[in-house]
């Protein structure tokens, strides 16, 4: 089989399939924006998109967005509002799914976007949470999209910006988080999901052409693999057509 799609396109499609019809989704930027458009056009026509700057959309914007505040995201919006409107509804439990990125994610799905090294004398000061820590805290589930290597998929993040399963499956409830947690990590090599009992990530599907030993070698902890490992379904022609319509220059999906 010839591979006529990019890793980013496969990740977009995997992300799109996480969106179920009728769900309210905190969309975010970059790849999830395109995933939302794919889902809306194909299997989730009634999904609703929330943007933390205060935008509610039920159609994807007509043009490629570089940020959620770009004018094409406002034109045709169903509502323009305050951040507290969309964040407040998420706190109330009305957001099904959010997408996050990050510098580091660990085996419990915790994400670091704040500091590498000691926060008082950081080696690298990363930009910070933005709305990510709120989405990880308050959405019914969240999905992380990240490049797969051992620097990014680490055993323990040095700083938990966005809380995942903490150090195990009961951690969120004990910290007082109302719901939610990580549902999947979509990487350049496969899709990881989380054990119900352990709260720990395992390899659930592997991308076409990738070897399990390579996934393990590029993961910063001894990665468990499901006994029924399947291949991540490749993008369909229909999905690729939509992605390339939205990102013709391959700015995000090249």
């Amino acid at each position, binding site marked *: 089989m010839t591979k006529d799609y990019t890793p980013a396109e496969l990740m977009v499609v995997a992300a799109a399939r996480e969106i179920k019809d009728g769900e309210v989704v905190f969309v975010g*930027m970059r790849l999830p924006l395109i995933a939302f458009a794919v889902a809306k056009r194909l299997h989730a026509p009634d999904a609703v998109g929330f*943007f*933390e*700057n*205060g*935008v509610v959309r039920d159609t994807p914007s007509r043009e490629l967005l*570089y*940020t*959620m*505040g*770009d*004018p094409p*995201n*406002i*034109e045709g*919006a169903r509502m*323009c*509002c*305050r*951040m*507290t409107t969309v*964040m407040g509804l998420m*706190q109330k439990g009305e957001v099904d799914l959010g997408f996050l990125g990050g510098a580091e994610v660990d085996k419990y799905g915790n994400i670091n976007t*704040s*500091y590498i090294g000691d*926060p008082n004398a*950081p*080696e*690298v*000061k*990363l*930009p*910070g*949470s*933005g*709305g*990510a*820590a*709120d989405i990880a*805290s*308050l959405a019914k589930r969240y999905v992380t999209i990240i490049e797969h290597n051992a620097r990014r998929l680490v055993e323990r993040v040095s*700083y*938990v*910006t*966005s*809380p995942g399963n*903490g150090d195990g499956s009961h*951690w*969120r409830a004990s*910290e*007082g*988080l*109302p719901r939610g947690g990580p549902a999947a990590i979509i990487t350049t090599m496969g899709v990881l999901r989380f054990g119900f009992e352990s709260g720990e990530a395992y390899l659930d599907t592997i991308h076409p052409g990738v070897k399990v030993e390579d996934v393990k070698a590029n993961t910063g902890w001894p990665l468990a693999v499901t006994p029924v490992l399947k291949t991540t379904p490749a993008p369909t022609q229909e999905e690729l057509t939509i992605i390339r319509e939205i990102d013709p220059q391959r700015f995000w999906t090249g």
Partner: protein
Amino acid sequence: MTMRDAIAQHVPDGSSVALGLALEALIPFAAGHELIRQNKRDLTLIGPISDILFDQLIGAGCVKTVIAAWAGNVSAGLGYNYRRAAEDGIPRPITIEDHSNFTIALGLLAGGLGAPFIPARTLLGSDILKTNPKLRPAASPLDGEKVLLVPAIMPDVTILHVQRADEHGGTHCWGNLGVSEEGGLAGARVIVVAEEIVGVEVISSDPNRVLVPPHRVTAVVHEPGGAHPSPVQGYYGRDTEFYHEYHAQSKTADAFVAWRRRWIDAIGSRAVYLKLLGNERWRRLAVQHEKLAAPANFSAT
């Protein structure tokens, strides 16, 4: 009022300043550049994400404390000046109060409500609570459940960029609002920067679109193009290339000094800045079409 006078009179050294409250749009870059030109010192910056304006103010040495959820370059990633200040104390050390977007929003909301804090369910278990002890987990007095107490944030000055304003503090702002309304109520003083100055009757024709109670507005500055490179709905789009150019041209402290000389220090006004940007580039960003809202009938009789 001119930008120079508004900043000189209403933002003394040591002020806490909220800006960039609509997130990626309507960022008051012209006001930020005037803060740098006037060499303001020991500012506390407040905002959810800020984009590259915080990075520029930090690189210029104007900033003592950053109260934000995110600081960097939305298009290009990290902000080099923010990193230099946080990692190496260049050009001066800064204190960072870590937040999320929601806790910045709730802090400003509490500030505008006159409430000491607002209880929330977010960030419980996040290390943000370790590096910012002002965000305090507590047991709810109602049922003992864990909540996060988000203390009020009350900026000395809130700076808001809007589409149009009248000379008496009336404002019209449209598109996503982020935490602009909260900031306009929480700030002790409010500086409004407008693309257009219109008559009071224009603003009063649609009072639902008014962003801040007009009597709370301290100064109105007419500054077309004042939000570039961020977008203003109905006026101009986002100059994404500019963010990438800034990223490349702020990689080292010396490079940032050169950038700053060219785009801020050598320029006395926004009109000159737009000239430097070039007519063709500015025309390319301008909104070409009209998509007008349907009129709403406000008649009482």
